[in-house]
């Protein structure tokens, strides 16, 4: 069962970054598996803020490595 925020993350990755939905799993590594670099991550974070209304702190990106880390960030806020 996906939360609303997780749904939004998936939509950003699939629609805006053209990532194959099948690759988006919690253990997928952003850079190695999905080719999402740190600047892409900044864009994704900004988009997630717009879509969820959550004030996701930019420092959180420092520890984000996988899709699961982003989900934890979304659920934790």
């Amino acid at each position, binding site marked *: 069962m996906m939360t609303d925020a997780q749904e939004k993350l998936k939509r950003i990755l699939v629609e805006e970054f053209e990532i194959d939905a099948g690759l988006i799993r919690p253990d997928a590594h952003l850079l190695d598996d999905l080719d999402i670099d740190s*600047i892409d991550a*900044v864009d994704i*974070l900004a*988009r997630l803020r717009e879509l969820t209304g959550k004030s996701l702190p930019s420092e959180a990106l420092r520890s984000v490595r996988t899709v699961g880390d982003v989900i934890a960030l979304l659920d934790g806020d």
Partner: protein
Amino acid sequence: MSDLTLPKPSKSWTRAARAAGVTAGYPFFALGCCVLAVLLAVSPLLVSRPTQRRILARRLAHHFARLFIWVTNRAALTDVRFEPLPPVEGTLLVANHPTLMDAIWLIARLPSAVCVLKADLERFRVLRFLVNRLGYLSNADPEKVLASACARLAAGETLLMFPEGTRTTPGAPLAFSTGAAEIALRSGAAVQTLVLHTRGTYLSKARPWWYFPDERIFWQLQSGPRFAPRTPAPAGSLKDQRAARRAYTAELQRVIQTALARAGHNGTN
């Protein structure tokens, strides 16, 4: 790889002299940093305005870097050379990163440049203090560094970045990350590429920092192609913005790689 094997020792006396020189070089450098830190620590007593203090700090660091090069060049430890540069004020400077000393040596030629340094360096307390006083930027937080880099360029400052994010791996092709191109696109600044030529692998990733060089450490700054300000992809389309910064990154990487290959000084020979 054959180019990473240790070279045959040269005449033992020159080697010994060089070893002594290098041994003296590091404490000299460390001492210089500490003296600089002390000067900057007391600078608020002398200069009250923060912007003026920053200008003073950069000027001191610039002169220290020049003194350092003068001494090591005179002592035949280094052969650091600067080719003429076009005016670079207000541009984003993008350089390759072959050696440990690139930022210091570049400061000797670019007194007002704001360096964007990797966050790891903040482990060193003196360095962290210097970076702060010089008004340099740390890349610890990508979102913040994008914003502050653009603000600095908008204010007319000159920014210096090493898009490899760490020193070049000798023998491997350059691998730029996309931050510099993103800053160029967001800020609308012109980009001046800088090509840093080296011979051998001293001070590179392939050697421990204390490894004694067998010959003078050659390093040369050459100006590379300049890129006029570009119109960014329309806001809102993450896909287009991403494609634009990746294409720009590839272009910057290619011109520097080409300049290195042309000179044959890509750190592998």
